[in-house]
């Protein structure tokens, strides 16, 4: 049998992000549920979040973020032959989000699939995209994390409605033909803990998202730093050389606790959650796109990504900032 031949490595050519227009402040939430701005800021680190319009879909947001990443990459829609959308909040089970997103972006007949690893979704999708490029099953991949968590939140439940939000982030992944040190996406460290399936879940289509906050906090602050360090080790990167640490924007307290234990004193730690809330699979590419837009990250510098969430699923890799 003849086999495809790929390339040595893959890299991210560009990121793009999209946030819905509507800003919801802590004070606005405090008017309807028993909470307050100070408590929310101190416990989860969020000042405001963005919520999609009633008719705005996951695919709408995926198209926005994907279009920006594509434009920034310099590639044309015709160059993309695989579209992966990481999402756990699609409006419908079928059709998937990826195929319609691709069509609306003018990408003609690419491979297209959705994948669900909840808040770890983007790192899973990025690893899959990198592997597809390296194996030769795709040339250029559009990877998108897009979520409309607001439609699964009980807006009278103060433990969840203060956290979750909507948005999308995207990356274009392309081959690197040259030597290994030019590669831009490091080996993934991924895993799961199915025994903790009951810590974050949505029971059925008529239910809202449930989270056992303290148990998740303990797991995240215990288990993730070693995963993050292992991703550095596999990539041959000393954590001290990281320019940025971009974990899933779950909770600022979790982010700070993991950052302390990773041992990357020079790294800028992403705190996009402050004005974006927890956008699940969208949070990492959204944070990266905004950090790059603000000029906070130098091209070619190293960033450590780690996604984690329901499942429990987690994944981490080091990338070079495009």
């Amino acid at each position, binding site marked *: 049998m003849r086999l495809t031949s790929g390339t040595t490595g893959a890299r991210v050519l560009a990121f793009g992000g999209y946030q819905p227009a509507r800003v919801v402040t802590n004070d606005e939430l405090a008017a309807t549920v028993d909470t307050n701005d100070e408590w929310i800021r*101190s*416990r989860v680190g969020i000042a405001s979040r963005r919520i999609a319009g009633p008719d705005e879909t996951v695919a709408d947001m995926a198209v926005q973020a994907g279009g920006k990443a594509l434009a920034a990459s310099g590639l044309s829609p015709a160059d993309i032959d695989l579209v992966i959308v990481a999402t756990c909040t699609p409006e419908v089970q079928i059709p998937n989000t990826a195929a319609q997103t691709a069509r609306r972006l003018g990408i003609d007949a690419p491979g297209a699939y959705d994948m669900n690893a909840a808040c770890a979704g983007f790192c899973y999708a990025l690893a899959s995209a990198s592997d597809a490029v390296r194996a030769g099953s795709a040339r250029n991949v559009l990877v998108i994390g897009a979520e409309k968590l607001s439609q699964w939140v009980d807006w009278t439940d103060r433990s969840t409605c203060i956290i979750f939000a909507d948005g999308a982030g995207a990356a274009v992944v392309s081959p690197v033909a040259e030597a290994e040190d030019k590669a831009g996406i490091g080996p993934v460290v991924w895993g799961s803990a199915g025994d903790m399936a009951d810590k974050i879940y949505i029971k059925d289509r008529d239910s809202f998202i449930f989270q056992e906050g*303290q*148990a998740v*906090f*303990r797991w995240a*602050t*215990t288990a993730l730093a070693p995963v993050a360090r292992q991703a550095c080790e596999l990539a041959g990167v000393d954590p001290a050389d990281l320019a940025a640490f971009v974990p899933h924007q779950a909770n600022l*307290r979790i982010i700070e*606790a993991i950052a*302390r234990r990773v041992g990357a004193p020079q790294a800028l730690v992403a705190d996009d959650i402050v004005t974006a809330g927890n956008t699940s699979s969208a949070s990492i590419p959204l944070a990266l796109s905004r950090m790059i837009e603000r000029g906070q990250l130098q091209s070619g510098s190293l960033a450590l990504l780690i996604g984690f969430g329901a499942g429990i699923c987690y994944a981490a890799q080091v990338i070079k900032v495009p």
Partner: protein
Amino acid sequence: MAMTEQEILAGLGEIIDEVAGVPADQVTPDKTFVDDLDIDSLSMVEIAVAAQDKFGVEIPDEQLKDLKTVQDVVNYVMRADVSA
């Protein structure tokens, strides 16, 4: 070898300084976490996680909520350390 009470107290002081920014010299046995040291439940979880790294003693969530003072944690670690 079992740790002494002073060693545990000193270790706990370092942890609390790092996690909650409370200077170690303020971490005295009679202080309560919530009222005296202004440490909330999430920081308590972080302290428990760090204590496990440092002392090799796991403090589960259900035990954690009963540990109100610095001395309570010291006692818990000492008992667990002896029985380990």
